[in-house]
């Protein structure tokens, strides 16, 4: 995460130039940039309420697209699948990610540098390469399973969940490690001096203290999993529909106000998750 409020004491916030024209220009440019960033979002939300059946013009207010959206069994089923995938993969990724973060912060072990590089790989490499690697991995290992047992597993929710776990772990580790950076190890020593065993120390001292970081990591993982399209697209199987893939298919054909409504809901969900995770991280 980016630290939002790092104020450096003693740093002079001297304005660059003396000319006001320059500052005004800078401010005007920034205003335009914020407009550029938010105009599409506003347009999308506004046009989810339009009566225009192409969903690109304002012709009057209606809620009918939301009604039709909730009546659309195909899209609702896809939404349920996406939520299931996000929930399961977040739970698993958060558990493994927290353990990895703890191990990496505390212990020096062989290959630690290598593990670190491997962990950050999914964040750095292009998503499409990660997706293709996962696809190839599934095909390859399914081939082996087929040869050994005579039955070939199929791509579907299972493969999507495994893939989501694989790439959200990295993000969880990054966030949890940040929260471990400020952790006072003497608290653990104190607990053990007072007779607590390792489990009790973890349960009553470590866990409560790093919990905001863990929740922050989990929320980030959840948001990323919900929003992911590329990896989902490559690792899903026939007959299993997930929301982003479904939206992509419909959007490729035409703009429909129903998708405007769906996008608005997805936007709201992501934005509230971001606010929640920021709030939790700042409280620590």
């Amino acid at each position, binding site marked *: 995460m980016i630290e939002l409020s790092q104020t450096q004491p003693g740093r002079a916030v001297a304005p660059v130039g003396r000319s006001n024209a320059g500052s005004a220009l800078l*401010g005007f440019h920034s205003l335009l940039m914020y407009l550029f960033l938010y105009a599409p979002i506003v347009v999308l939300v506004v046009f989810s309420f339009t009566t225009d059946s192409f969903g690109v013009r304002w012709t009057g207010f209606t809620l009918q697209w939301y009604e039709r959206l909730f009546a659309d069994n195909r899209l609702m089923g896809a939404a349920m699948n996406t939520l299931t995938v996000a929930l399961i993969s977040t739970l698993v990724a958060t558990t493994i990610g927290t353990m990895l973060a703890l191990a990496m912060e505390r212990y020096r072990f062989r290959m630690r540098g290598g593990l670190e590089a491997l962990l950050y790989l999914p964040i750095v490499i292009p998503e499409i390469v990660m997706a*293709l690697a996962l696809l190839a991995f599934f095909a390859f290992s399914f081939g082996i399973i087929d040869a050994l047992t005579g039955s070939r597993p199929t791509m579907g929710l299972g493969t999507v969940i495994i893939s989501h776990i694989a790439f959200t772990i990295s993000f969880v580790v990054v966030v949890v490690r940040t929260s471990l950076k400020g952790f006072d190890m003497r608290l653990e020593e104190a607990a053990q001096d007072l007779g607590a065993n390792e489990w009790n120390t973890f349960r009553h001292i470590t866990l409560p203290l790093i919990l905001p970081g863990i929740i922050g990591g989990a929320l980030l993982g959840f948001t990323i999993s919900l929003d992911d399209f590329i990896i989902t697209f490559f690792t899903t199987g026939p007959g299993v529909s997930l929301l982003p893939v479904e939206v992509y298919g419909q959007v490729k054909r035409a703009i429909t106000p129903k998708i405007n409504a769906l996008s608005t809901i997805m936007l709201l969900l992501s934005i509230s998750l971001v606010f929640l995770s*920021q709030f939790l991280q700042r409280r620590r």
Partner: protein
Amino acid sequence: MVVLYSFATPGPTGRVEWTFTLDNYIRLFGETLYVNASLRSIWVGLLTTLICLIIGYPLALFIVRQPARWRAALLFLILIPFWTNFLVRTYAWMIILSNNGVINTMLQSIGLPRQILYPSEGAVLIGLIYGELPFMVLPLYAALDRFDFTLMEAASDLGANRWRAFLRVMLPLSLPGIVAGSVLVFIPTVGQFVVSDLLGGAKVDYLGNLLQRLFTRSNPPNWPLGSAMAIVFMAILTIVILLYYRTTLEERR
């Protein structure tokens, strides 16, 4: 998991027939379709990176110069779109640029003829810049936040004009941010296929689109060729990133 990933990367040998061959690589470098798509992707990636840098730098500078309270809020406003669904944000541009969309309505209301804004190459570029801008602004902000602005005054006291002070003092000192931002923008842009598919109408091939087709859509899918392409793609990216770091290290010396 990532260990499994690296272990699973398929080599140039076929998935169906496990015999060693270099034909895939020869095809990649021999057929204009693949060479052109790769070059086009790299070109669009560079263009997107450059434009993001040009419009992102003043924005980061503006935020850094605000009072501390405002800085956090302004930065957070940049973060929000970055966490929302990429597909949804690209879709929003389809609405804006469509034939009866916002821009064309505005054009008509001031008496100008309608333009076909999408699908087009320009629309792809706008979509990419829109999607990647936060990745440029955040590292730039981090770099400029560490910059000591009294240095600018020192430079002007020594007789440099503002432009010269900017070029010789501020720009070199914020170079780490520029490099980080550029790499963060360039990498996803070269591999993308969603934006060019939706906003470009899939009329022109980009590297990402070819990869996607080779693996899922072409009949039958050509995995060995696709894998070879992915490996060449990763190699190109690695070289670009290494070059980037090399040049910036040398400039610093």
